């Protein structure tokens, strides 16, 4: 049997696409470093990474939906839903630890419902999560009557502001999430089945993998990490804002795509998704320091995503 000589041209572009996020991150950091002395400072990079942590956790959740060839649009509402649950329960006098668990569990419930509709009722992922985006957002607004709830907890404050020496808690949470997701995807049976279902659901079914259950689990995992991100958001903001988080939604998908995961499923890159999250946050952070209008920021983020999609075209 002859050795397969891969087509050289597309091979190089595929390689380029795999390293799009780290490469772009270096370029963006150098550009901002040249543009302003305030970007590449220890304190700014520290804050930038803290801001990236929430998006990174969210993107890691999105990664689960994307790896089974799906998408989770509901995170835009699931994130404030977790925050609102934490706010409501904490204000009602529920002990903080329990309130955090309830918030995360609430997000898991949203994920399980999504996963049931997509996996068992075979509804289109895009429509299902678009629908639950709207439903969950409405429920959140009903729960909070549209008001931001202040959550004054020294514990949450400490998580957002402190750390072990220079290492901030938020980084560690994101790092722990990344390691766990990596381990799950690449070192466990469940992860193999997630990749298999995303890579070819017929073949997966043919080998006896419970495809429906695997899909459900993927959306549940997305919900779980969304809940964790929601708690982090409350810690960082000192309160629960019930409004829809479309920026976080788009950025979470963008981070995964930038990271080199295939939207057609079956390919995942945990390092890529985290790098993608840092890259997108860096753009916003740098623009803010330089004083470029935030309207340009959304354009830049969108342009980067389109560029990543273009690169992904050549990966096939």
């Amino acid at each position: 049997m002859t050795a397969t000589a891969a087509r050289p041209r597309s091979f190089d572009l595929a390689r380029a696409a795999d390293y799009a996020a780290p490469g772009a991150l270096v370029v963006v950091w150098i550009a901002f470093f040249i543009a302003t002395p305030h970007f590449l400072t220890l304190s700014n990079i520290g804050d930038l990474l803290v801001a990236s942590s929430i998006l990174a956790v969210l993107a890691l959740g999105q990664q689960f939906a994307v790896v089974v060839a799906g998408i989770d649009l509901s995170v835009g509402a699931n994130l404030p839903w977790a925050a609102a649950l934490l706010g409501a329960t904490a204000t009602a006098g529920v002990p903080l630890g329990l309130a955090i668990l309830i918030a995360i569990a609430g997000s898991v419930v949203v994920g399980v419902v999504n996963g049931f509709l997509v996996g068992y009722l075979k509804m289109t992922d895009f429509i299902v999560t678009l629908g639950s985006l709207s439903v969950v957002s409405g429920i959140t607004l009903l729960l909070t009557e549209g008001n931001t709830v202040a959550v004054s907890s020294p514990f949450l404050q400490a998580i957002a502001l402190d750390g072990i020496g220079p290492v901030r808690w938020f980084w560690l949470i994101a790092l722990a999430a990344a390691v766990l997701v990596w381990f799950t995807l690449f070192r466990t049976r469940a992860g193999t089945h997630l990749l298999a279902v995303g890579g070819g659901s017929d073949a997966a079914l043919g080998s006896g993998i419970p495809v429906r259950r695997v899909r459900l689990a993927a959306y549940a995992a997305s919900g779980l990490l969304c809940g964790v991100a929601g708690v982090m958001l409350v810690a960082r903001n000192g309160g629960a804002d019930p409004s829809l988080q479309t920026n976080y939604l788009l950025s979470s998908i963008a981070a995964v795509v930038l990271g080199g995961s295939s939207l057609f499923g079956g390919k995942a890159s945990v390092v890529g998704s985290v790098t993608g999250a840092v890259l997108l946050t860096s753009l916003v952070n740098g623009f803010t320091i330089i004083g470029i209008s935030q309207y340009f920021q959304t354009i830049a983020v969108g342009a980067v995503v389109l560029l990543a999609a273009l690169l992904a075209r050549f990966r096939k």
Partner: protein
Amino acid sequence: MTSETKYLIEARDLVKSFDAVRALDGLTAGFAEGEVTAIVGDNGAGKSTLVRCLTGVHPPTEGQLLFRGEPIRLSSPQAARDLGIETVYQDLGLIDDLAVWQNLFLNRELLRPVPLLGVLDRPRMIRESRDILGGLDVNVPSVRTTVRRMSGGQRQSIAIARAVTWGRSLVIMDEPTAALGVRETAAVEKLILSLRDRGVTVLIISHDLEQVMRVADTVVVLRRGRAVARRPVADVTGDRLVGLITGTISEAA
């Protein structure tokens, strides 16, 4: 071969209707243990339907399946798998973005003795994958490469290797070389012959009569949903097979 032959799996008066169409119309045929049996027949003769009955995809409408002489009901593909019946489908059922070893152990992953977590024993699966492919003389650059980067023949060989590894009793191949070039076909045929030498029971569907003559021990001819002949390959010629398939020669099965 006579009717005294020990059949591994046997179909008796099998009928499978799809609405008004009788895809299988009282088919009776046996597949002997340790042999390569080829099923030949024109389009619509019922080859694929028979395979789907044997793999539990389509339970038959009427009739009986016997496995080692015992009547069985194959209500699902899992039921067939539990009996050690594995199938290599035309689309191969491989996951392109997973490595060769992951495909070989798909849904049969070896785990480390850690409770609940399902932690993969990667070194062991990689090692055993090398042994499996090496034992079958299947050459791949590395079992850690993704299947996407394999040639058509390599993919076919991997799919067959997987079926052989888990198919303790019977390996069914549906047109295993239909999509392959000459050299790759030769390699896959060599693999099938080595399976025969190892005593694996193989059932192969093929349109290529010369291939049937090369790799099979016995050939079963289907026509209009019935088995019209069962002959040792040594006793038939290509012309005679064509006659049996088209119906210009008829004789009792």
